[in-house]
């Protein structure tokens, strides 16, 4: 990647200069992911900024070879996911902690909870339905269809085989359709 090459050959000024391009190129992806994970615009902005700062600190200490081998977007998304989990752990009083449990089972798809979530979410019924998904499915769907990553990138960011990522996305979409259908028939 051109940006990574630029980072690799540059000095201090070039490093920061190249990082301007990295932020510019990836800020929409990182912010979109952060916004859907936190469900709060201000939290999303802080989380996205923190993600870039973590990335910057790491890149400064990476060897040239390591920088060159990076696939920037999934690498940044992995940092975002780690930062988000840290945030959830340190602020467990936040309402979104119900979706954090790593192995939590699919939630009840009965219309009641779905409708109440929908009413409390300012981003609309689809966003509310998305929030009802189990964490791995929710993350996979967000990365694939909200952020717009390829399935390979989703797998890389989630540190799982592509087949597993595909399965999470597929089951997530299936459940979203079921939730949407129940809401529309309610």
């Amino acid at each position, binding site marked *: 990647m051109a940006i990574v090459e630029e980072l690799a050959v540059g000095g201090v000024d070039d490093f920061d200069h190249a990082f*301007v391009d990295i*932020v510019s190129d990836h800020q929409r992806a990182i912010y979109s992911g952060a916004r859907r994970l936190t469900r709060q615009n201000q939290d999303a*902005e802080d989380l996205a900024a923190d993600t870039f700062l973590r990335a910057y600190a790491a890149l400064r200490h990476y060897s040239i070879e390591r920088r060159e081998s990076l696939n920037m977007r999934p690498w940044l998304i992995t940092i975002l996911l780690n930062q988000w989990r840290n945030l959830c752990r340190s602020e467990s009083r936040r309402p979104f902690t119900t979706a954090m449990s790593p192995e939590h089972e699919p939630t009840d798809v009965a219309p009641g909870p779905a409708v109440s979530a929908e009413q409390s979410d300012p981003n609309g019924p*689809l966003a509310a339905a998305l929030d009802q998904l189990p964490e791995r499915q929710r993350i996979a*769907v967000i990365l694939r*269809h909200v952020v717009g990553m390829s399935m390979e990138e989703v797998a890389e960011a989630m540190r799982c085989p592509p087949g597993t990522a595909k399965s999470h996305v597929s089951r997530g*979409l299936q459940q*979203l*359709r079921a939730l949407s259908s129940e809401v529309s028939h309610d």
Partner: protein
Amino acid sequence: MTDSLLADLAALGASPPAGFADAVFADYVQLDAVAALPAVFVAFTDQGICCVDPSREEGEFLDRFHRRFGRPLRFARRAPRGVVDALRSGRSAALRYDLRGLSEFEQAVLRKTLEIPRGEVRPYAWVAREIGNPAAVRATGSALGRNPIPFLIPCHRVIRSDGTPGQYGFGPELKKKLLTAEGYVTGV
């Protein structure tokens, strides 16, 4: 149905608000020497001024900044409003400062130091007492020694109880020079 769902999901993506990069980067300028003050680099974020550094070489400043703050820098065309006047006049209490990364104690020391007017000095023990930690005189000295915003946060106005200038990160001679320029007659 499927296409509609995927399109609706894609529509949940959003660009960050304008100025988002300001939360990631710090900006910096280099200002010429003024009166007793050496030329300085001034770095600032969207939260306020975070660093004043009298390094002579830009590379030296960048290196020091990166090691301490871990934040990328952009070159700015001008300093935040009021900074140049504050450096000239020694009246800097009204400026906004970004003290993130410092401990609560360090922040309290620096905020209290900011209240010392030009032409006056206070002993380390006064700062410690004023922030409610009268026994923490040595720690107050350490916090002042780590002041990332010297000159604007006037750590040079904090001296020993016997009236002598005491230690200074940029050398005791500069401390004496600054105090003399501000009208304070230092002890020997």
